[in-house]
């Protein structure tokens, strides 16, 4: 495609360390695989499995809130035989705890970061694999070990962890949540954190070291920007979280008192349960951005790809995402406004939190600007992309209510918070993940997913999901607080039953709609229409090679002459996009030896 590709021999000398022969056996190809594409698929399947578990748990939550004390139809007696099919209160605790934990750490993270990160980074950078393939493999299998521990915790006596996904001490101490469940929870998350850290180190290094010759940071697709920033945040803050979990584990198992307060611990040590909240949220707030940044990146790219137009202000989008990543590390205190933080801290955290709206506004307007005067193709990935713009708008704007101390005092711990964060880190991240999966599916499996089923999946997911979380925010504003098994114990919440039923029915519809995806996904893998090399007409590197991507991706390492969003360039007559590794006279850059990384 271009006269400037670097030859395989040249690359071999630089990259010998991560070349390994094409695997032949089932064991080396599908299990202990070093290939980033296979590892991406492993993460995807793991994520889909856990997302299904998490979704079933969310259905149980919605059943309990809308139909308290009533047995679950059909499967109730099977799930809760000792209470005649009614969800008991202790089970309700572990249901919402495991729902949150699983969705964040075992569903969204593996799909958005584990799968899309692994799949896109080498392909979009023009590399043959991750820079550390062994670490990549270890990252997946550590996650798998974590999954096994988490799964096992469902079957221990007294049930799995039931203290909330935030695992606040002192409730998380063994005195108040006895049993193996929460200890296994901590072990599982320690492993998951280790896995994320391995992945993060790999991603960051790969992006810095393995960009194709000629590819500057602003030539990277915005998907890569999102994954890069998410990985940097992961590498910085996951260790803090895992350290917190380790200390809590020591408290639970070996009787240390890091988080046990003086007044109630027998020996009078000066442990502090609030210290844990600092450790948790200094990770926890960036985590919101860790899951949403890859989705933002995918959205920024796909809006351009399917509008057939360059991404509006792409440098500013990348810059805004960077600014938000930095700010995300400085705002975590807004999760702790009601713990009695000093006014200096609450005011500072309010100010910093609200400042996030400035860069958010920039890239949001860039998204709309990309659509402006485009030629929008409503393919399934684009539908999901546009729904992210809509739902993230809702989630982002309601964040302002929670960022200001005054309103936070009333809304903290209510369903308003639940609705808000589901719009951002659940709905927007999930829909962004779907956009990515529908978009890269042809490159992963060499087949197309069915458009018609995709559109059914889209509409039956998005409409009820928006109703569901809007209803949650309304109920929260009306005073309904979180994590209560039966809200109607309170007289001032009794009349919220109708809106809770609306929310639950929406949840059931949205939940059922995901079966369409599962069917479409697995069926298309074997029976879908065979995909061409470039079904969407997009110019990033991965679309210049056959579908599915061959072992080692690129016969010759491509060199980068254009940005990722060169659409509708008047210089092109026969098609409306330019490949990144294509040289077009008068448009593309020549590869200067000085700009090459190799």
């Amino acid at each position, binding site marked *: 495609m271009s006269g400037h590709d670097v030859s395989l021999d040249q690359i071999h000398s630089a990259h010998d360390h991560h070349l390994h022969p094409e695997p032949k056996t089932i064991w080396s190809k599908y299990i202990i695989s070093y290939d980033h594409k296979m590892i991406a698929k492993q993460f995807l399947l793991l994520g889909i499995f856990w997302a299904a578990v998490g979704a079933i748990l969310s259905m149980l939550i919605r059943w309990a809130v809308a139909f308290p004390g009533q047995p679950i139809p059909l499967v109730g007696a099977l799930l809760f035989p*000792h*209470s*005649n099919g*009614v969800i008991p*209160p202790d089970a309700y605790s572990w249901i919402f705890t495991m729902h949150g934990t699983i969705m964040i750490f075992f569903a969204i993270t593996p799909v958005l970061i584990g799968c899309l990160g692994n799949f896109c980074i080498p392909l979009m950078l023009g590399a043959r694999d991750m820079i550390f393939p062994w670490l990549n493999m270890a990252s997946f299998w550590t996650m798998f*070990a974590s999954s096994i521990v988490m799964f096992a915790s469902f079957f221990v*006596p007294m049930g799995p962890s039931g203290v909330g996904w935030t695992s606040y001490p*002192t*409730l998380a101490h*063994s*005195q*108040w949540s006895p049993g193996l469940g929460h200890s*296994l929870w901590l072990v599982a998350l*320690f492993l998951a954190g280790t896995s994320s850290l391995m992945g993060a180190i790999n991603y960051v290094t790969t992006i810095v070291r393995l960009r194709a010759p000629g590819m500057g940071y602003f030539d990277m697709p915005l998907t890569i920007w999102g994954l890069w920033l998410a990985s940097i945040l992961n590498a910085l803050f996951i260790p803090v979280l895992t350290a917190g979990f380790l200390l809590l584990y020591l408290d639970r198992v070996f009787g240390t008192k890091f988080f046990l307060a003086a*007044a109630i611990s027998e020996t009078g040590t000066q442990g502090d349960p609030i210290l844990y909240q600092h450790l948790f949220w200094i990770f926890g707030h960036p985590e919101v951005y860790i899951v949403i940044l890859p989705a933002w990146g995918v959205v920024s790219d796909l809006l351009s790809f399917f509008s057939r137009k*360059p*991404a*509006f*202000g792409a440098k500013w989008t990348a810059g805004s995402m960077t600014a938000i990543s930095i700010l995300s590390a400085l705002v975590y205190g807004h999760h702790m406004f*009601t713990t*009695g933080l000093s*006014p200096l801290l609450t005011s500072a955290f309010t100010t910093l939190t609200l*400042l996030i*709206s*400035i860069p958010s*506004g*920039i890239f*949001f*307007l860039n998204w*709309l600007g990309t*659509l402006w*005067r485009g*030629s*929008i193709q*409503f393919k399934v990935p684009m539908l999901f992309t546009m729904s992210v713009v*809509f739902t993230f708008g*809702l989630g982002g*704007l309601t964040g302002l*209510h929670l960022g*200001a101390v*005054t309103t936070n005092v*009333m809304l*903290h*711990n209510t369903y308003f918070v639940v609705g808000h964060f589901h719009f951002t880190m659940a709905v927007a991240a999930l829909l962004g993940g779907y956009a990515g999966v529908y978009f890269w599916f042809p490159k992963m499996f060499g087949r197309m997913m069915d458009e018609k089923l995709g559109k059914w999946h889209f509409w039956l997911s998005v409409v009820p999901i928006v109703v569901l979380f809007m209803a949650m925010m309304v109920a929260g504003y*009306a*005073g309904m*607080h*979180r*994590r209560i*098994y*039966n809200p*109607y*114990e*309170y007289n*001032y919440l*009794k*009349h*919220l*039953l*109708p809106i809770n039923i609306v929310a639950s029915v929406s949840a059931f519809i949205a939940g059922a709609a995901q079966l369409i995806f599962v069917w479409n996904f697995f069926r298309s893998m074997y029976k879908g229409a065979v995909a061409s090399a470039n079904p969407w007409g997009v110019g990033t590197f991965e679309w210049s090679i056959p579908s599915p991507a061959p072992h080692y991706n690129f016969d010759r390492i491509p060199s980068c002459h254009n940005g990722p969003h060169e659409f509708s360039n008047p210089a092109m007559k026969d098609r409306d996009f330019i490949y990144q590794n294509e040289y077009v006279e008068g448009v593309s850059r020549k590869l200067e030896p000085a700009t090459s990384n190799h």
Partner: protein
Amino acid sequence: MMSHHLRRKLRLTWGLAAGLALGGAWISLPEKATAQTVETIHQQRQDQASQVHAQGSGHLPGKPFLDNYKPPQDLSTEGHRINWLFEYTSWVTFGFFVVMATALFYFAYAFRARPGHKAEYSKGKSFWEQTVKWTLDAAVFISLDLVLIWATYKDTAEYFWNYPKGPEVVKVMVMPQQWAWNFKYAGADGEFGTEDDINTINEMRLPKGRPIMIQMKAKDVIHGFLFMEARMQMDAIPGNITKFWFDINKAGEFELACAHMCGTYHYKMKAFIRVMEQEDYAKWTTEASEWSKATFDPEEKSAQWGWKWGI
């Protein structure tokens, strides 16, 4: 490629770590889960299932539909700050959302791919494109960020941290525990830790129209004091004293909710707040204080909780 030596080491480290973790977790099981404990849990579950569950109701009778989805009426002097800021933020964000959603749907319609329509090759660098973008972003900054920051600073200084002082302040110590609320009043002598302290459980009596100063500390795990009619919420933390104040301008019986996940019966952890006319409250405190003094038992340690009151 990683050397075999290093890999063997890694494998050993991981094995040891996993063994330690899982072994430790097993040790931590306090009462080894015997068939008996499992049976007890099952019995509890059956009891729970057979108990009567509180039921929700339909919409509020005789009230406008939208009132169903508003918080309970604000009965405090300062709660209007919270109401005002909530409504302000909601309306302004709603305005921006309408602009955003209109643009999204209009663009989706107007710039849909169709025969004869071509995308424009522009990267958003033109003067007017930049102007629109920065104007809208500045509008967000001025109408939302600056107002919210200003309101927060003002409310923090004038309300949240501006503790009332003087003889009319009612001081209450609160100690939530799994799953009940303990309240303590200084009694007739105005001092905590004396024989005439008044203790109540799950019922907090307050006088109408006087500032209520609360100091709170949790007995076991973190709880949350959520009193919607006063628009007030504060965490109760084991080991840390949290302080806050509010007042209530209407007599009546209200509900105090535990806002923080505190275990299985979190949802049942409610108390009543009985707001009384000032004379009734004075009468009650006098009687209750005398009764406390008359029945004081130094051996009854569980009633003598508390800490040194200080602001």
